[in-house]
């Protein structure tokens, strides 16, 4: 233990510069106080609005002056539009995630382990791709597969038919295609990072021991890539659940997702309590999954 009985030894220390320094202040601002200002700003701009959404979801229009009621919830949960939107949202998100994982894994595998000239450029292209908004993909697909787009135009030009065979763009399949296209890079990026950590000597040793490419992928690469796959996959799942631009741009009446429903309830129908109910459900779904993603990616060390 500290020896406190010894006389305090304050030996004089000679100084050579003028004493322009302030006396040592021992009462310093605690470190957590520095985190307060940004937290307060975030609380005001984000948490407070979010809390109001939750409150509004319990306040039907008839009860505008205080009082809480579950009426908005029972009404919304009873509507078929909501149930269909919930199902569509979930299966679209799950389908798109699976598609992104498979496609992203294959593409990243080739870029990382069957290197070709221009591979770096492709990787950079993927980074650029990520910085563009999602609805551009739907816009492009409209030109390619739209009712007057190039695919149908080519078909009618060749066969002389009145209209082309591609009508899937306004169905959930069009949304699925767009989501897979847009979100695959989100899987590829963590995968490429994980692959670059993998010691290539492992692959060389494995193939010198007689393992073929499939066995190497399954037994050497895949185990290493699993954390990155899990992290990328759950991020994409959340982003797909929340995707709005892609669905809005298809202009399809048949495809309603939860974010789309929030938009139409609030802006088109001005039914704020209903919009807030859908929003709360969507938040619960996404935030729950996102927490899972954080846990997974922390495990993965990402």
């Amino acid at each position, binding site marked *: *233990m*500290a*020896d406190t009985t010894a006389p305090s*030894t*304050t*030996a004089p220390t*000679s*100084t*050579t510069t003028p004493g322009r*320094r302030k006396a040592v202040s021992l009462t310093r601002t605690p470190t957590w106080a520095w985190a307060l200002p940004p937290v307060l700003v975030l609380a005001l701009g984000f948490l407070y609005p979010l809390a109001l959404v939750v409150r509004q979801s319990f306040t039907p229009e008839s009860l505008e002056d205080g009082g809480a009621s579950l009426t908005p919830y029972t009404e919304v949960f009873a509507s078929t539009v909501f149930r269909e939107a919930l199902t569509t949202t979930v299966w679209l998100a799950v389908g798109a995630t699976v598609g992104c994982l498979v496609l992203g894994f294959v593409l990243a595998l080739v870029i990382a382990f069957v290197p070709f000239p221009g591979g770096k450029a492709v990787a950079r292209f993927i980074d650029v791709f990520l910085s563009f908004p999602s609805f551009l993909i739907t816009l492009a697909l409209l030109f390619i597969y739209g009712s007057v787009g190039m695919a149908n135009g080519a078909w009618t030009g060749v066969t002389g038919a009145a209209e082309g065979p591609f009508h899937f763009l306004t169905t959930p399949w069009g949304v699925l295609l767009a989501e897979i296209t847009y979100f695959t890079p989100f899987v590829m990026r963590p995968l490429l990072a994980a692959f670059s950590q993998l010691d290539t000597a492992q692959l060389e040793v494995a193939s010198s021991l007689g393992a073929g490419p499939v066995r190497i992928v399954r037994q050497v690469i895949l185990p290493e890539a699993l954390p990155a796959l899990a992290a990328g996959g759950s991020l994409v799942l959340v982003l797909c659940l929340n995707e709005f631009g892609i669905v809005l741009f298809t202009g399809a009446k048949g495809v309603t997702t939860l974010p789309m429903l929030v938009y139409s309830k609030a802006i088109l129908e001005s039914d704020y309590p209903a919009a807030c109910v859908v929003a709360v459900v969507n938040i619960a779904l996404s935030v729950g999954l996102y927490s899972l993603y954080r846990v997974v990616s922390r495990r993965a060390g990402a």
Partner: protein
Amino acid sequence: MSPGNLATTTAPSGIQFDGVSVAYGENTVLDRLDLTVEPGEVMALLGPSGSGKTTALRAVAGFVRPASGRVLIGGRDVTQLPPNQRGIGMVVQQYALFPHLKVKDNVAFGLKAHRTPKAEIAGRVTEALELVGMAAYATRYPRELSGGQQQRVAIARALAIRPGVLLLDEPLSALDARLRSGMLAELARLHRELPDVSILYVTHDQVEALTLADRIAVMDRARLQDCGTPEELYRRPRTEFTASFVGNANLLPVTVTGPGRVDLAGAALDVPTDTAAPGAAATLCVRPHLVGIGAGPNALTGTVTEVQWRGSTHRVHAEVAGHRLVADLRELRDPPALGDPVTLHFASEDAVLLPAGTAPEATESPKKPQAVASG
């Protein structure tokens, strides 16, 4: 606690560890260290990794907070002071030169932090860079320098603020072997030119410690094991750990049979026994290069188990009375072969008797009464 300006002091100020313990949770990484570095002394903290030596240095710098005990610099208790108010110079293994600043701005950094008058800064920077022979590189960026050059700049940066105490944390371990011996000589020269600066030098390399230090503190498993001048530790180690860590050593278990006599598995040997009572178990320490081949005093006969040719020497391992004895012999014209019988011997005065068993408690006597002050 005395406030005020200490960082620009050139007055000699030593370091004092007063029962300093550091723990991370349950894990004690430094256990009640008592050690005094005299003003102007070079003290090496020598030990294997995990021995607590770097923790001790970081406690002086203020980057670890002792769980108990006090750290004094120049007689002043700095235990509660933040690092920037301690007035120390520090050089770490990876140099930590600021990559975004030119060499001269790196060196000026500490001066500006101490509000040195602008007019003085340029002169002090040049002075510090000249001291380490790097004045010609003032406008380079660190990334444009070699490892050895970065090392010199790091030293100049630490010295520019004229600290009373210089902390060196494995400063040469990132350099290759040839540069290392050059820098070692350089550090020795620097210390001759700045005789008032106390240096605490952390290393795991016994050669660095033996070459540079006035005294060496040997650390192991969070504790101070031994402290003394390099010669004392080398010639008269007091623990098995010191004997084997500072230089090589043959350590043989013996029993004291009488004054000046011990028994090694039936073989009677004449060695000084002033530290042990008759009947006690002890460990006999003999340096391999002090073991001779052929007949002589304290002769032991055994079988050769290994012979290594090392250029200027032959290292012969022999099994003697059930124990291994290693001898470093000046290159032999006719070295023995494996399995040959061999006779080895050593002079009584070259042997040291150590307490048997594990390393002794650090509390035994860290501050040796015969500890010699700086030379």
